[in-house]
């Protein structure tokens, strides 16, 4: 195909908890399996945000790292909003997701201002929301089942205009109360799901790739077999329902793509 995908991994060593590096491995592999060329670069504390990249990736971290990351992001990564407005995809997990919101209030009551790409706010809470998750996602480009593992103290509330990425079937999601999980605004995706989330939800990985390559307009991608992915997702869904399901659920949706 000859197309080239340029990924920027933000704070890889600080926001690298819970196997989120697997999301990068998944995106890079799935692009390369289709014959695409992929460049990956990292930007951490003190580094200016590289501009014009197709996809910006953020993972989860510990509280101590989070403070340093929030402060640094406001100084050096504020350009992320402009990149997203130009159609770059931003995909953020857990602490990275919280960073994209308006602010995060720590357990000690300190308010850390976020980058404001998502009209969402997060308050530290207790107990931590921990366990397998199964949710049903919907986006303007189609949706599908979403499985993963959540482990967060923060309770995130979405603003009235902001759509969740998914509705929780089993698990807690954004705050354990309103049934929402993650958020989606334009090409900015946030989620609490680790697992890591992309390898087990290849339809979402491919949606991110296709939006990134088309700068916000999805481009078609060659299908991949995804046999291993499907059986891992089926198992994860069954375990999430058995362990955290509240009611007998409907059959899982099939991933859909609207043209």
């Amino acid at each position, binding site marked *: 195909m000859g197309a080239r995908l340029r990924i920027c991994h933000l704070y890889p*060593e*600080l926001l*690298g*908890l*819970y*196997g*989120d*590096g*697997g999301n990068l*491995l*998944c995106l890079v*592999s799935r692009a390369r399996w289709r014959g695409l060329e992929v460049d990956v670069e990292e930007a951490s*504390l003190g580094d200016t945000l590289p501009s014009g990249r197709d996809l910006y990736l953020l993972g989860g971290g*510990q*509280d*101590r*790292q989070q403070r*340093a990351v929030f402060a640094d992001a406001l100084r050096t990564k504020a350009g992320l909003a402009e990149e997203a407005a130009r159609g770059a995809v931003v995909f953020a997990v857990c602490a990275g997701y919280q960073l994209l919101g308006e602010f995060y209030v720590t357990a000690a009551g300190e308010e850390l201002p976020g980058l404001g790409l998502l009209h969402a706010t997060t308050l530290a809470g207790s107990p*931590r929301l*921990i*366990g*397998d998750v199964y949710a049903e996602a919907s986006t303007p480009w189609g949706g599908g089942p979403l499985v993963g*593992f959540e*482990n967060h103290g923060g309770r995130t509330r979405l603003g009235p205009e902001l759509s969740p990425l998914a509705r929780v079937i089993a698990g807690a999601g954004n705050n354990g109360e309103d049934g929402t999980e993650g958020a989606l605004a334009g090409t900015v995706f946030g989620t609490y799901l*680790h*697992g*890591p989330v992309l*390898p*087990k939800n290849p339809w979402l990985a491919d949606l991110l790739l296709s939006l990134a390559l088309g700068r916000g307009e999805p481009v078609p991608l060659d299908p991949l077999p995804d*046999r*291993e*992915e499907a*059986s*891992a997702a*089926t*198992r*994860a869904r069954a*375990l999430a329902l058995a362990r955290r399901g509240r009611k007998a659920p409907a059959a899982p949706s099939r991933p859909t793509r609207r043209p």
Partner: protein
Amino acid sequence: MLTALASRAAGAGGGTTLPGVLARRVYPESARVYSKGLGTRPFLVTGTNGKTTTVHLLARALSAAGLSTCYNAGGANLMSGITTALLLEPARDTACFEVDEGEFPRAVEELDPGAVAVLNLFRDQLDRYGEVEAVASRVERAIAALPKDTWVILNADDPAVASMSRAAKGPVLTFGIQDETWAGAAVGVQDFPDCRHCGSPLTYSRRFIGHLGHYHCPRCGWSRPHPDLAVRNVKLHGLAGSTLLLSTPAGLCQVHLKILGLAGAYSAAAALALALAGGVPLETARRAIQSAEPAFGRGEEVRLPTDPRRPSSGWRGVALLLGKNPASFAELIRVLSLEPTPVAAVVAVNDRIADGTDISWIWDVDFTALAGKASWLLASGDRAEDVVLRLKYAGLEGVASERSPLAALEKLVREGPAGSTLVFLGTYTAMLELHRGLQKRGLVRPFWKGRH
């Protein structure tokens, strides 16, 4: 916590915790009283990885020095397990216990140890104890609460552990690896990238396992202390063990270990430091450590008939390797990559409470070295499907799976290619389940009896 206790009490078998649970319910001071009855105050070992092996080595050294020693050989490392060990063998000269990181403050308070060691703090079971950060603070506070005459043994190569010397009131001994041969060979995730004093990112000149290595802070100048017990030279012989040259305050010594990998070298150094702090002569400790067999699941070999119905058809040996978290898995893969032959392996991952219910960490382990070395692979355990998917992204598509660890092991023995080294890599409960199955067939001894 109650569920963890209950699951271990119900699941660990062998009564390694239940008597203690009951005793503590009737008389909460049991452990305190029994500990006071010991001739020499007990030794405690905590940290994420290497506790069982370190205590196993230390118990041998103390016994070799003529001290009858009580220890929690079964790996039951909550207060219930420790109390059980004290109850069952109360009239001992001394005791050494491995202590769960979360339980360490309570153990210190109840047992009044004469020496403690903190081996390392890796990411492990985040779902249970919260983040490493919180665990580190709790352990450091417990160190600060120790009296002036308690020895504190710390890993110089782990910044989060080494910095605890600031909290210690008593004498401190540090241990670490000086041999640069192995630096950078296996780089896992960093759990403590920041300086413990000023908070800025640490710079590493060498890294051995994950964040264990030689580091300094470019801003405030804090750096790794020079270890009192330094492993000057390490030769790793794959599954056959290793040879170490150590310099200690009591002199130089060479040790041929049957314990595996750099992780084994750290455990040996920690056990020697504890033994020296306890007054054991260096040569006595060295010999004792040298003759120690690997502990449960730490490279012990089981032998199985290729065909269970016709034992005369031949037997094959399999090395059992317990991998609990990214750091220990990565270290095992390094050990396997040094084997002279190809490796046929079962990788079994469970996500029960004792394993940690979040298995995302398998994505932090670099499986590519295993992929290059493997002649045959089989995924197993409650999350076998996740293992298959992980291996696909390490370049191995279509790996088969078998849910039951025992059935997977039998398949390995039956189908593993001739000329390959057979290994079973598994998380804690997968290994436990396997052991129970093997034991029913009389193929292994009950693990809680330990090995002498």
